[in-house]
């Protein structure tokens, strides 16, 4: 288990021309293992930046990011890639899949990089695709799947290797409400079953309704942090 996730006084600034933008401003936060958390707030509030920093896709300009015992800020690029490969599952907003690979190959992708052998990998990928309701569509390429089906393949890929942490950046943004609901149900189930930590960034009220913990961001600052179960 990767354990607690800690953001210690994290700031991420970008420069745009002469203007300095604080995408994240002195954010301090602790996320417990197994939480189902959502970052929400208006566009440009820093939700995606927070997710990217937690996932090691981006580095803070200052501050520290600890995931369990590991300090992401002190890792090399290659070490962070390795850490993501073995501990984190990602679901992005759109264009989540590798177009030249079929649905099952996309799901197998991470497991193949992890070195899981052929038969076990295929079995697990087929089983997860079945779990997300895509049985029979294993050999379809992303171009032959609808947006909702593509997102489900992405979720299948994110969970197939049983990661301790799943980061989902606006996963329902391009989906209709029925598909969104089904996807959230699925992720709640996985959270319940595998005790994986799920962190979302979203505008979607459906996701927010399902989350156990809601963290509101505005102009890169955490302005509220509420735990529904506690409340």
């Amino acid at each position, binding site marked *: 288990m990767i354990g607690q996730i800690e953001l210690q006084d994290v700031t991420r600034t970008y420069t745009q021309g002469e203007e300095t933008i604080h995408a994240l401003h002195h954010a301090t936060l602790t996320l417990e293992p197994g939480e189902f958390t959502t970052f929400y707030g208006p566009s440009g509030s820093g939700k995606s930046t927070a997710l990217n920093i937690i996932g090691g896709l981006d580095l803070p300009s200052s501050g520290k990011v600890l995931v369990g015992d590991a300090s992401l800020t002190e890792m090399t690029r290659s070490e962070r*890639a390795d850490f993501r490969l073995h501990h*984190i599952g*990602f679901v992005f907003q759109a264009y989540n899949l590798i177009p030249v690979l079929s649905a099952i190959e996309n799901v197998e992708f991470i497991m193949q990089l992890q070195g899981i052998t052929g038969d076990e990998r295929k079995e697990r990928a087929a089983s997860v695709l079945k779990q997300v309701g895509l049985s029979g569509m294993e050999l379809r390429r992303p171009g032959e799947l609808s947006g909702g089906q593509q997102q489900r393949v992405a979720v299948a890929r994110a969970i197939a290797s049983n990661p301790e942490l799943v980061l989902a950046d606006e996963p329902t943004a391009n989906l209709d409400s029925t598909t969104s609901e089904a996807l959230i149900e699925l992720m709640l189930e996985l959270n319940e079953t595998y005790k994986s930590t799920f962190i979302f960034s979203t505008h979607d009220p459906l996701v927010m309704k399902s989350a156990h913990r809601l963290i509101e961001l505005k102009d890169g600052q955490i302005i509220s942090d509420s735990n529904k179960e506690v409340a």
Partner: protein
Amino acid sequence: MGVLAALPLLSRLAFRNILRNRKRSFLTLLAVSVGIGSSILLAALARGMGEQITRDAIYGMTGHIQVRHASFTDDPSIEHRFVSDEESFESLMQHPLVEHAAQRIRVPAVIMSERESRGITLFGISPQSEKDFSLAGINPNRGRALQDSSDNGLFIGEKLLEKLKTKLGRRVVLTTQDKDNNISDRGFRIVGVFDAELDSTELSYVFTSLQSAQTLTHTPREISEISILTPSLDIPNSFITFTQKLYPNQRITTWKDIEPLIVTLVTIQNGFLLFWFLIVIIAIGLGLMNSLFMSIYERARELGLMQALGMKPGAIVLQTVLESFYLLLIGSLLGIALGVWGVHLLANGIDISAFAEGASIAGISTMIYPALFVADIAMLTVMLLVLGVLGSFYPAWHSSHEHSLTLIHRGMT
């Protein structure tokens, strides 16, 4: 998991990416295969020309190796002769590397007809020794060949006959210096006319029998050279040593010493070919790099996604390099097939006489027969694969060292 362990996955991605943009891949393959194919054809023609020049010299009157008086190369006059030792010659003929050997008189002379005169090289030959060996043993175009070592006839080239404004069957006078440096001349009847590959040969070589030449130069039982034909252009040192032992007072010279111009020509040709290969490969490499940059730019988001999912930068590099390697490999194979096919089509030779009239005067045949060398194909292919793959490292490195988020966002715009 090491990058190499991901090779099956990376290979699959590389292949599918090649198939993904078929038009671009087809154009890249076309450029590679045409480049390789044309280079193979050009190399075969150049090699063919080089071989032809060497063969013309070897089977002209040079042979692979010659036994000469030590000073003959610098001053090829009758002064520099040596006594023909039949015992040594017999031993030489017994050596397994000797395919043919011929003893000759070779002297500069002047030939005069009733109308014209020209400087020539006179050869005194034993017709039987020259058969299937040298120009002196070829069948006449007109008249007859020399028949034995005492034949008093003269065997000359068609071009010389024309220049002398004389005819077959007429008498001409040969003038040369004898062993005592006195002028010696004698009338000969033209008994045969030959047609050689090169005009220069037809104009300058005149043959009579060994005895007639010895009589003319007052050198009975003496010769200027022994020319030897071996199975290959590369003559083993052991054979040179053997020959030197048989003729301890003479100089043993190889065709490379006798025909330095040909050696230089072939060396320059090799350098030119290498230079041409490099130019072709650099041009292909630049085209490939451009194609890879385009391909990577189009797949920016995908590459960013792979990095985000945990693919290491080394694996991203390897994936791009593999894509280039496969394109180069397939293109090279197609190019080799194209080149070999081209060589096959030109197997009967190309006649360049229409636009290279001076070629034969320069010692180059006007018919070029392509000669395919596996070493050229191998060198070209290896150079292309190595330099092409090295060249593709730059776009590959570029793709792997851009930030995954930058790539993802670029792909979204």
